[in-house]
């Protein structure tokens, strides 16, 4: 309802129909991370349908694949900026890609909004670089704090994927948090993308009897880790990072997923009209529950649309300025604003999986 209000303000500027704009999307659509890209583009498409129907802005999405590779992301960005002359860009999916594309967008003066980049330093790439995904520095401490409160944690084991930016960045935060909270780290173990066998490291962790396991993993690996850990008799709770948070965890690990604590901007079961309607529509359109990637992308496009609306034009600079101005925007993720650097400001929710469901962790 808030959206409608803000929308109302902008209406005056486009008396002669909706503001037209082209938004480029760089997404990871082929290759091992295609599932992320798929969720993102689904979220975007859904948002755009709604926006079109609302009729205040008329956005055309130009979606390009980056295959998760920097060069391809860069080429895609160049294509969008210089051939398709888009007015703003959403994406790319990976922080590594953003590191390459961000400066180039800055140079071209095109606003770029990351909806899934959680590594440190992304908004700092330039004035035109924004993100609406919460960084791990925000999510992980929130989750760990709550877990410590509840379970009286003294000893933790840390587990992380060391060959991936996302999980490695998450680990750096976990290490810091453990230090800040005076937790004893009994062991730190690493694994690699697409690994199948986690038994050796879990066996070791089990023998050290931690009270809590901090696991910086993407859900793909994380779910398998949970499954193998529970089978082995490790029943302490897990705290995961952003990437661990996905309904897929429950699909893959089943009962074993219970006890996973994550802090997330996105909670599909939230008692909120917007969220409910989004989840419903998304399920209807794509047959699965939206994960945070879809939700962040969905909100991302709304944010861009808001900026375009407020700018009242598709001028690249005007869009940037308008986006920086966005305050307390109500999306499916919650209330969002940007700080000076272009990073998101919002409160994450801490969730735990219980009874094969995400519920709010109190």
């Amino acid at each position, binding site marked *: 309802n808030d959206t409608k209000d803000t929308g109302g303000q902008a209406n005056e500027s486009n008396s002669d129909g909706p503001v037209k704009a082209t938004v480029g999307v760089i997404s990871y659509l*082929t290759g*091992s991370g295609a599932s992320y890209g798929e969720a993102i583009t689904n979220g975007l498409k859904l948002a755009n349908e709604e926006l079109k129907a609302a009729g205040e802005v008329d956005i055309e999405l130009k979606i390009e694949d980056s295959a998760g590779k920097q060069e391809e992301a860069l080429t895609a960005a160049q294509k969008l900026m210089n051939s398709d002359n888009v007015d703003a860009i959403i994406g790319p999916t990976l922080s590594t890609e953003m590191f390459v594309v961000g400066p180039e967008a800055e140079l071209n003066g095109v606003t770029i909004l990351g909806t899934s980049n959680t590594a440190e330093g992304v908004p700092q790439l330039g004035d035109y670089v924004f993100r609406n995904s919460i960084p791990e520095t925000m999510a992980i401490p929130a989750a760990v704090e709550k877990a410590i409160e509840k379970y009286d944690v003294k000893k933790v084991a840390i587990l992380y994927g060391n060959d991936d930016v996302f999980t490695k960045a998450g680990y750096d935060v976990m290490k810091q948090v453990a230090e800040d909270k005076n937790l004893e780290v009994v062991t730190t173990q*690493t694994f690699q993308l*697409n690994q199948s066998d986690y038994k*050796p490291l879990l066996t070791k962790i089990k023998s050290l009897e931690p009270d809590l396991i901090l696991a910086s993993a993407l*859900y793909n690996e994380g779910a*398998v880790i949970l*499954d193998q850990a529970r*089978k082995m008799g490790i029943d302490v709770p897990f705290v995961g990072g952003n990437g661990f948070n996905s309904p897929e965890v429950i699909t893959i690990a089943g009962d074993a997923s219970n006890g996973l604590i994550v802090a997330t901007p996105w909670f599909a079961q939230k008692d909120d009209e917007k969220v409910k309607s989004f989840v419903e529509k998304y399920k209807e359109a794509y047959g699965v529950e939206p994960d945070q990637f879809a939700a962040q992308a969905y909100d991302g496009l709304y944010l861009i649309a808001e900026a375009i609306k407020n700018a009242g034009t598709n001028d690249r600079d005007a869009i940037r300025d308008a986006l920086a101005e966005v305050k307390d925007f109500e999306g499916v993720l919650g209330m969002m604003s940007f700080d000076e650097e272009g990073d998101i400001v919002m409160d994450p929710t801490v969730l735990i999986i219980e009874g094969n469901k995400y519920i709010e962790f109190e």
Partner: protein
Amino acid sequence: MLIEQLINGLTLGSIYVVVALGYTLVFGVLNIVNMGHGEIFMFGAFMGVVVTNSLGLPLYVAFIIAIVVTAILGYFLERFALRPLRGKEGVSHLAPLISTIGVSIFLENAAHHLFGAGNKPFRTSFSDMSFTVGTTTIYYVQILIFVIAILLMAGLMFWLSKTKAGKALRASAEDLSVASLLGVNTKRMITQTVILASAMGGIAGILVGLAFNSVNPQMGLSFGLKGLAIIILGGLGNVRGAMVGGLILGLAETFVVAYGDSGYRDAIAFIAIIVILIVRPQGIFGTATSGSRG
């Protein structure tokens, strides 16, 4: 913990063995490293998922379907990626390597479309069955995997060294036209070999699904690379070498994680082969073929 890790290592090693045997067999006969084998193995694993989870059929059906499907894939691989290269003038020895890499790229991406990019659960009641000795829990799956690895190896070894067909296979490996002059139907022999190796990949795929509950389109690459390292470790085309190499690698990886730095786990295989190749270029069990003579 030592015993548990030992079991972990043996389980992993046994899976590596079954993957590596597929490579070894094809290399032994065709002198070709079949880079598509890993992806065929991955398809085997997905068959397990589809049959047990999506269709809800029992495990043994999964084995059968996986074997059939991977055998068919093997046939196509031979038919389209290997046969056209055979007996052609001016074919560099890299050509089959590249064309099977083409197959692997194709299959991996096809799997993305067919099954989705992420992990798929592979849960069967059998994979939860276990017994406990002292403080150690042993799963029946682990025993099954070990037994299958041993059986396949023993069967292959017997077949290659003791049977007529095995000898014919080795003859074909060395010189196709000579083998055919000696009465071997080389075309059929080769097709059968690739099919057999692929079916073994299918079995390996299911075993991985059972053991780790982790099936994804990328597993072909990660296991495939290990498989390659193993056949080099054990000596190309050597069945016993594949067995020993696989078990050693499984144990080594496990113990690096248990007592060393888990960050280097993926490097172990290759550090080992680099060392082995420098010390013993023909692999642990490879026989030094005296170079061509003057």
